[in-house]
């Protein structure tokens, strides 16, 4: 069992957990993910690592409550334990001294881009950070994120915090103003990553994105996380989760994310009257 040591409610649908998982914490690197399972009947879900503390042996996760499992997870408290916690999985981010880098976290993507930003800063890059969300309530970790950056921007779709607009608007401005950007990492909803990658392509700026595909085992066994990269099929779990944003078929990824949409609705419906998350029992 893997104990939840700390819980923070970042917004009503956005939660932070610190999990006691010393073996994972000892080995994990920026860009990797874990797979967890809440209980005996639970599904295995991948979550990208938001932070880790090797000395305390903890992994920090931040998740948005979007489906049955993440809702159930959101109701757990410090002191509760997860049945399964596997990792670190996937390839770590390629951390190098690129020069000037832009690190973009959109929505819950702010969490996984944080340790990558820190690693890029430690590698001696000039780091420009962009944090974006739909509204102020869904923004988090802006101070922590800012502390890793030489320059930092905030934006919201509705203008309730920072600039009004999308992360891609700010990215565009940065590229135009600075002239030279050497590396971009963008993590967030697929449409946001797609727009960022399309934006940097004409400039030839190396741009990586991190995919959170549907997975079962997370070790290369099931192939559910297939993604077309260039003219090849890759597995996000063992070949990724980061890929060259200029080569990823984002449209395919968007459609593949919908595979179990109907079932997800059914699970939520069953949960709300089956003694699950709704509290009606």
């Amino acid at each position, binding site marked *: 069992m893997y104990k939840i040591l700390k819980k923070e409610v970042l917004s009503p649908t956005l939660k932070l957990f610190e999990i006691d998982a010393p073996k994972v914490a000892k080995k994990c690197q920026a860009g990797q993910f874990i797979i967890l399972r809440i209980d005996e009947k639970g599904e295995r879900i991948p979550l990208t690592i938001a932070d880790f503390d090797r000395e305390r042996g903890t992994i920090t996760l931040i998740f948005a409550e979007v489906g049955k499992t993440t809702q159930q997870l959101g109701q757990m408290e410090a002191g509760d334990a997860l049945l399964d916690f596997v990792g670190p999985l996937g390839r770590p981010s390629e951390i190098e001294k690129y020069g000037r880098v832009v690190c973009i976290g959109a929505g819950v993507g702010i969490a996984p881009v944080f340790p990558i930003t820190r690693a890029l800063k430690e590698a001696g890059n000039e780091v420009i950070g962009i944090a974006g969300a739909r509204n102020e309530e869904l923004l988090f970790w802006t101070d922590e994120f800012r502390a890793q950056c030489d320059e930092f921007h905030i934006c919201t779709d509705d203008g309730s915090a920072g600039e009004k607009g999308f992360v891609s608007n700010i990215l565009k401005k940065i590229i135009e103003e600075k002239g030279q950007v050497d590396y971009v990492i963008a993590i967030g909803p697929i449409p946001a990553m797609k727009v960022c990658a399309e934006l940097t392509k004409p400039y030839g700026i190396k741009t990586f994105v991190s995919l959170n595909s549907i997975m079962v*085992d997370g070790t290369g066994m099931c192939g559910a996380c297939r993604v077309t990269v260039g003219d090849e099929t890759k597995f996000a779990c063992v070949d990724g989760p980061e890929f060259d944003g200029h080569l990823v078929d984002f449209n395919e990824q968007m459609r593949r994310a919908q595979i179990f949409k109907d079932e997800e609705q059914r699970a939520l419906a069953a949960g709300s009257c089956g003694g699950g998350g709704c509290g009606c029992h």
Partner: protein
Amino acid sequence: MSLNNSPIKNDMPCQDPKVRAKNFEEVALGYTVEQALDEANRCLGCKKEPCRQGCPVQVPIPQFIAKIQESDFAGAIATIKEKNALPAVCGRVCPQEAQCEKYCVRAKKGDPVGIGRLERFVADLERSQGVNPVECAPPTGKKVAVVGSGPAGLTVAADCAQAGHDVTIFEALHVPGGVLMYGIPEFRLPKAIVQAEIENLKKIGVKVEVDAVIGAIDTVDELLENEGFDAVFIGTGAGLPYFLGIPGENLNGVYSANEFLTRTNLMKAYLFPEYDTPIKVGKKVAVLGGGNVAMDCARTALRLGAEEVHIVYRRSMEELPARVEEVHHAEEEGVIFDILTNPTEIIGNDQNWVTGMTCLKFELGEPDESGRRKPVAIEGSDFHMPMDTVVVAIGQGPNPLVPRTTKGLDTNRKGNIVASEETGATSKPSVYAGGDVVTGAATVIKAMGAGRVSATSICELLKK
């Protein structure tokens, strides 16, 4: 005993095909005591033991059957267990017709003795009465790490624990058993049986660490250098699905056999939404491939509610690599066999969902390097096959995680670990490997045979 001269093997009692095609309960129900005795009495007890030569782990077959003839069922299972740690599993999933039973003298005039069915009978009887742990040698103080808990790993663990070594199994998934848990369906191999076998290993001191991906938490090198293991066995199986490489394979509704079976077996998606893992199966399902895994997928699809399930295979019925019994069961349950057929493209709608396949018809030409007649496409034979779901069951390659993270471990062109057939030794000292990760996808019993070979080598090494 009095010899039973019947040329016919005692039939295996089975669930009715129409009923079982809608449930996940075991298809074959097992012999009664009377049937087992009657079948055992067909054995001639040949001095030359031809059957035994066909068994990858050399189970003393005539001896265990002789015990059944004497109604000494405890003696029979003890005799099997001298050589086979997983008799309840092997009695169910071994391809006996290509191994022990193939060499049975009775097969010259009629059916061979039902060796697998008898093995299963005594194993099940023992389990129902409570299993006595096997005796182990006194502790040696040596530590053995087993990476992967499929049939190869479980065999190594059993043999090494019996030799007195301190054994830890590392399993990447959340339950041990490997392909016995995620791959082979409940209706062919009940999961409770696999777990009972693993409990028996725990009783003799084998430790099992689940959620432990070697290569991610500890590497093989770290197991040897930091964790104090004296030897490592790698039995990580064939856990990387192959696809055909035709257009449309990433459409929604196309599964690898691994995904389809893992969702259903390991994650119990057939009980969704009671269990959280979903699976989606359309009305018309095509399973590409002709092996046991393909049969498992086809029969699983029926049980998940598909109305029409097709096996699409490019050779003919004679070349199907699946066991005869599995093909027979699939046919009985209503699986349609589209042989000499292969897709060239999977077609989808604007929402990315599968709607069908373009297929070509084939005919058999000259034998190819595998000795089977090579399927040759018939020009202009392309036709459309409407489908909602496609399961690709054309084989699996070795999982790359351990080879990728282990220095000095040689692999071949396909990524399989190179290991000696005689000893299981790899290019790396104190590291052994066996099963599908070495041979490519094969059978449970072959993996167990390879496990036995490696365990013997490990025990030799640790004597020094």
